[in-house]
């Protein structure tokens, strides 16, 4: 064994990572969450590889927070299994939280406590906590450490929560909509901090957010929840390649409608044709159409799509884009995912 490998192994041992450490940081298999008769999460399966930034997206009520609560061991699954760093978060939450940093959707820091006092408390309950680093990060962010949290702005509270999470030297960061309520400056600062963290050490991040533009900058993988089911789960580059927006002339429209399956979303254009959002993976028949070659090519009107546009298309469009065909939520997620791969 080389010296570098030994150092790496020693570091990992110190961080609690052994030779048996699982290859996935987060493994969710067939997870369902029920609240009485309501099934908030339906048969979700996903895998997050170590070192990746996984953006779990979905509209309000799609089941993100329910899934995150299960991931954090705050409630058990109704069905399925979850492994965080190889362990069941419901049963081994205490042990796992030593290795996980959390930023909650709503700031939940004790309102009467100051950051300095809170650092003392966290230092007592955690084996790993960089108090100096925490206070230094707060200072860098301009968050006063001597004022109680209730007197801080929401952005400052979120920043403090992120600083607290990062000071625990986590192997996994779970950020539940951390940009909610933040202004653009605060959002950028938060993303910068995350990027710096990612650059400095290998940490896996699971983040839920409605700030799609911001999250697109750091996410390596994207999962989109629709009505509790995982509709899309792919690396972000593959996702961008999979969906595209095409212009269809009035002349082509009738023929394509007769010969090809419906697009994901469509909207009429001023010149009598339509714009389509197409899932290339699911509509390979369109690729083979000679008259449709044109629209696929960049020169013939194909437009690359950003994450926000893809998200809107996948989750059902908006007032402009009419969903023509809802994207299928896999009934058997495991088999479906395997098939997609």
């Amino acid at each position, binding site marked *: 064994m080389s010296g570098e490998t030994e150092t790496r192994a020693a570091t990992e041992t110190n961080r609690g990572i052994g030779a048996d450490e699982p290859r996935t940081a987060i493994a969710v298999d067939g997870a369902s969450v029920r609240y009485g008769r309501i099934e908030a999460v339906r048969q979700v399966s996903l895998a997050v590889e170590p070192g990746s930034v996984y953006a779990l997206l979905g509209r309000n009520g799609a089941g993100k927070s329910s899934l995150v609560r299960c991931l954090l061991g*705050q*409630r058990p699954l109704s069905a399925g299994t979850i492994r965080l760093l190889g362990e069941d978060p419901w049963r081994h939450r*205490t042990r796992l939280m030593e290795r996980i940093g959390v930023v909650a959707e709503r700031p939940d820091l004790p309102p009467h406590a100051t950051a300095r006092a809170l650092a003392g408390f966290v230092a007592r309950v955690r*084996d790993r906590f960089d108090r100096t680093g925490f206070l230094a990060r707060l200072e860098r962010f301009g968050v006063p450490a001597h004022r109680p949290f209730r007197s801080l702005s929401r952005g400052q509270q979120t920043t403090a929560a992120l600083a607290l999470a990062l000071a625990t030297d986590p192997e996994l960061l779970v950020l539940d909509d951390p940009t909610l309520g933040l202004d653009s400056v605060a959002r950028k600062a938060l993303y910068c901090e995350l990027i710096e963290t990612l650059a400095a050490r290998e940490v896996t991040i699971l983040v839920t957010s409605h700030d799609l533009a911001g999250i697109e900058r750091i996410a390596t993988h994207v999962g989109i929840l629709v009505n509790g089911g995982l509709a899309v789960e792919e690396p972000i580059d593959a996702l961008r390649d999979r969906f595209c927006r095409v212009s269809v002339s009035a002349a082509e429209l009738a023929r394509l409608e007769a010969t090809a399956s419906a697009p994901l979303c469509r909207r009429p254009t001023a010149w009598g044709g339509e714009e389509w959002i197409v899932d290339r993976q699911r509509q390979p028949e369109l690729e083979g159409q000679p008259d449709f070659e044109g629209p696929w090519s960049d020169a013939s009107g194909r437009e690359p799509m950003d994450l926000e546009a893809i998200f809107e298309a996948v989750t059902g469009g908006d007032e402009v884009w009419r969903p023509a065909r809802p994207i299928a939520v896999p009934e058997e997620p495991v088999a479906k995912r395997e098939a997609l791969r």
Partner: protein
Amino acid sequence: MIRRFVRSILAVALWEIRERRAPLVAGLAVGVLVPIVGALGQREIPTTAAAVSMTFGGVVALLFGGTMITSDLVEGRLGFLFAQPIPAAAVYWGRFAGATLAAAACQVVTLLPSVVVGIDPLGFDQALARWWWSVLAALPAAVAVAHVLASIVRLRTAWTLLDVGAAFALTWMTTVTLGKAELVGLDRHAWLAAIGFLAMAGLIALSVGGPLQVARGRTERSRSHRFLTLGLWAVPLATSAALALGVDSWSRVTLEEIDTWSVDVPTSSEAEWIVIEGWQEEPGTSVPTRSWLAWLDPRRSVYAVLVARPADGVWHQLPAGSDEARISADGRWITWLQRQPSSTAVDLLRLDIETLGSQKREIEPLPTGIGWDRPPLGYSLSPDGSWIGARIRVEGPQRLAIHEVGSGRLVIQSAPIEDSGVYGFGWIDDTRVRLVTASTACEVFTLDAATGTSESARTTRVADPMSLRCVVDPAGERILVAEQDSLALFTADGQELASRAYEGGRPWPWFVDDHLFVRNPDDEAALHLLDSETLASVATWRSHPVRFSPVAAQGSAGLLQRRVLDAPGVSYDLLDLDTGRISELADTLADSPLASGRWIRPVPNHWPPRIDPPSPSSERLFIEPRGLFAVDLEARAWRWVLRFENAT
């Protein structure tokens, strides 16, 4: 793991105390104000200081308990603690410990300024000091209760309905169970033990409910409430149910468990039923200490009334709370006083025992329409069960009254009767009830249910009322008045039939059918038989000496039973009136029911009709709750004739 748990509890508790420091300062300020205001207002400072300290500590404990978990849970801030490597139970226990210690500190610091200025509230009054320490000791319970109540009120989920339902169910079950326990005669220790068990269950519930709520419910309101509800009510409801089952089981007395009883046998030759009032221990006697846990034995004083027709061999137990059972002479009706839990009121119920038998074992009491705010001084059932005569007291001297059974109608009531010793009370025929009392003379009161008339008579006054003793013959027609040195026989209307002098101390007379016996306390071995018409001496028998008081004689079989209680064992003498022989059976029948220390009863010759009479003429039948047995006076041996089945 344990190290982490302890470390987490300490960290959370310290954090909780730190968060609660503001009331501590307020307590100190209040404590400073007490001596100042007390001095200005000329009030008793020690009492005020202690009262303020207790009140402040209690209020703060309720406040802290109500907010220690619930506020964060409702406001969605509990997730912070669950995002730390803190065991879920440590979250509850840490906050509980912190809140309790902070509340205790508030109580102490409120008292502190008074102590500093030289006032010692706890040394001022021992009772006050006990109260202060009691409140301090109760703070943990106050914190836990406040937490539970706050959770139920503030979480406001559907589980609140179950909480309310469970609270009602628990209250109802406990009330019914303790009421029944009172009725079946569980003694005070057992009753207190039942309360203690319930209190213990409450503490366990508080200790389980909160931690379970946090450990299993974690950060979700509904789930949290669900586990609080389950943890909170499961133990008390289970305990209450167990107590209910236990009391129900205790109330079903088996014959083997009854140590002491009295037997009532109908006088009619047609009657077959007997009534037994039984106790686990003889009331008023000291309980032998079997073990240090003996005081917990809930059955030490269980009281039960059982009825049976020996020919069927089946016992029926009257409902819990039955008392003073009477059986009509014709053997058809049984009446009893039915007590109610936590009430002095009683109802008279009756049972048609012809509806019972070996097949039907459930009894169906019938109302009589008769009830009293407090139990009557005594009552007697007429031979055919149509009326009852009752000695009642309503704001003054007692009265004798007749009620019609069924309608409850008051048929007739006597004028007030001077409170004095009662020497005879019962029905002398189908319609007349008679009461014989004595103060300076024997007085006879007779009510007639058929005519609705009342009569009274009295014998001549005696010289020494302190030594007066009246004895009424079984028919209620003759009254023997015994004084220190004389005996006189009267009719029920006060006419003297005979009299004689009696030497040797105050005589102790009693009737056995037409036989009149007299014993003399100065000569315990002598038993005199007098002529019941002329009071002339007929015979004198002698036996070994027995103590004066515990002599009894029953039965028409010409058999006298003498019972001695103070011997190491128990001794019985049997006197055969035909032969005049006194037999001491204790040694030879050591293993017989006679020697078991229980009350036994000779059986009339005709009874029971379906049992063949004993073949040797020297055999005599006796009854005790386990069955009928025959004693052969010649052979000095005994045998079971019939063993009763225990149907209860």
